Structure formats: C-alpha cells, structure tokens
C-alpha cells in the first residue's frame, strides 16, 4: 500500500460532507505527534517509509496466532518435534519458517494433567509477536498484569477456564529477552486428525494460557 494511504483519510473527522471543500482536513493531536516523529526520523535517515509500510502490512495480514497454532499442531502429531520444541523452542519454531525479529528467545511450556501454564508480562506487554501476532488489549492492561500473578485461578475463572483443584497453575513472566508460549494439551477425540484440522482447534488464548483449545464437539456445533 502507498505510504500516504495511511494518512490520507483521517479517521474520526467530524465532517461527513464529501463535497464540502471549504473545510480543511483534521488530524487528531496524537496523529500529529506520530507524523511529527515519523517525518523527522525519515528526514534524518533513521527510518525508511517503505520499510514501515512493509512492517505494518506484515503485522496486519501475515503474522498472527495461526502461526502459533501450526507449531502446536505439529507438536501434537510429531513427538520428536515436541521434544525439540520443549528443549529449545526458537530453532524448533524456525523449522516451520516462523521467524523472530531477532533478540527474543522463545520458551514453550507444556500443559499437563497436573500443571496449567499461564503467561503474562508484569513489566509492560512483552509477547511473542512473530508466533502469536500482537497481544490482545487485556494482555496490556494493568489488571491482567497484576492479577495473573496474585490470583491466577480467579483470572482463569473470568476467562471461563475452571481447572481441577489439584491442578497446579504455573505463571510465566515474559520479558524482552524471553517470551513464553503455552503448548496446550491435545483435546480428546482428535485421534487421526491431520495438522490443519488440529491447528483450527488452537486459539490464541490457549497459547497464552487463558483458554483451552476448542473441542471437536465445539467445532462441529
């Protein structure tokens, strides 16, 4: 997409009359601040507008939780892959042509009948973008940052996840250097399913730990 297309049609303008050219355009204060930084950085040669557009397009259209779902489905069907993924996740994920932007080290933690894993970033909103896309709004909000640690069972209940009392909940605090992803348990009743069908069961929340994979019944319904 052309660079100016991001800016040519400001959102939220007050005037709905397309033919009323007597009025100028509007930028919100925050839009003007973003343009100010961007134009200065482009002039000074720190950023390339084409590279910015390519990044936006990639994160709007190509990168998302479907990447992580492929990783999970492979781990469910290939025990050797699962072992590699849990031993050293970054190269195992790269095997599926899902790339990091550098700098971040991925760790995958597996749910078991005894332990449920939950991922949070208590500092800000560190998240494995290349594998899961950009984080949902609640992941970035103070209540989740605080309560995932102090009351993980309560948080899970709010997400509709109730676990047996005996199940231990392990909370993993993502940082800029180490980003966690949950490998959920494979749902019962999926014997013989291929990877594509299994991947369709894997939700974003299941890989953060605030959800469980869909069940075959839920998909059929």
């Amino acid at each position: 997409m052309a660079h100016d297309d991001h800016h040519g049609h400001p959102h939220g303008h007050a005037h709905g009359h397309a033919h009323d050219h007597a009025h100028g355009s509007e930028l919100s204060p925050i839009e003007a601040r973003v343009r100010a930084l961007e134009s200065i950085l482009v002039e000074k040669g720190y950023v390339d507008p084409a590279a910015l557009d390519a990044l936006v397009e990639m994160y709007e259209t190509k990168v998302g939780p479907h990447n992580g779902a492929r990783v999970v489905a492979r781990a469910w069907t290939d025990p050797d892959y699962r072992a590699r993924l849990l031993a050293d996740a970054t190269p195992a994920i790269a095997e599926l042509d899902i790339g990091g932007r550098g700098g971040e080290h991925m760790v995958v933690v597996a749910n078991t009948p005894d332990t449920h894993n939950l991922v949070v970033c208590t500092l800000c909103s560190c998240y494995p973008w290349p594998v899961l896309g950009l984080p949902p709004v609640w992941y970035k909000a103070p209540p989740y940052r605080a309560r995932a640690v102090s009351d993980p069972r309560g948080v899970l209940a709010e997400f509709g996840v109730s676990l047996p009392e005996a199940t231990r909940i392990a909370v993993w605090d993502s940082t800029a250097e180490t980003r966690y992803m949950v490998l959920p348990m494979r749902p019962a009743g999926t014997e013989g399913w291929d990877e594509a069908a299994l991947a369709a069961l894997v939700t974003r929340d299941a890989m953060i730990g605030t959800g469980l994979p869909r069940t075959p019944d839920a998909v059929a319904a």
Partner: protein
Amino acid sequence: MSLADPGPFAAPWEAQVFALVVSLRDAGLFTWPEWAQALGRAIRPEDDAEAPADYGRWLAALEGLLAERGIALADGVAERRDAWLRAAAATPHGQPIRLENDPLRG
C-alpha cells in the same frame, strides 16, 4: 480465529507507532530490553495510576527515548506537530495531508 477479532491495530496511527519502534530497534537505536524499560516507565507515571501498555504509551515512551538520545528533541517534535496540524487545516477534505501544505512552511 473468530471473525469478531478486531485485528492488531485500532487505528492507522497505532500501526505507524508500532512500525517506527520495530524499525528503530532493527536499526540499532535501542535494544528490546531498553525498549521494555522505557515502556515500563511510560505506563507507571509518578502521579497517576498504572496505565495500559497501549499505543499511546508506546508513543510517549518513544518520544522520551528519542529525546534522551538527542535524536528528536521535545521542542523540535512539538514544532513539527504544530506544522502538521496547520498543514491538515490547509488541506481540502479528502486530499492527502502533506507537510508542504503548512502555510507557514519556510
């Protein structure tokens, strides 16, 4: 994913802020740990409650980092912001807004 999933960005400016941060990190202006520290500070104002790590805070954190490093000082950014606002007001509705449209541009 559900069709109701709103996608990663609520507005084009959010995507631009995200792309600026990733580009500048790629260019070596800061590391991811330095970025996380800056964002962590931006969401914890001394005189107010902890805030969501949304793209408004990303922008504030980026402005702070670039000012600290002398790459884009606050006064220059504020001047440029005002120039963009003047350019917008001088641009017929529906036309792309360009900095050249600022009537005070020298």
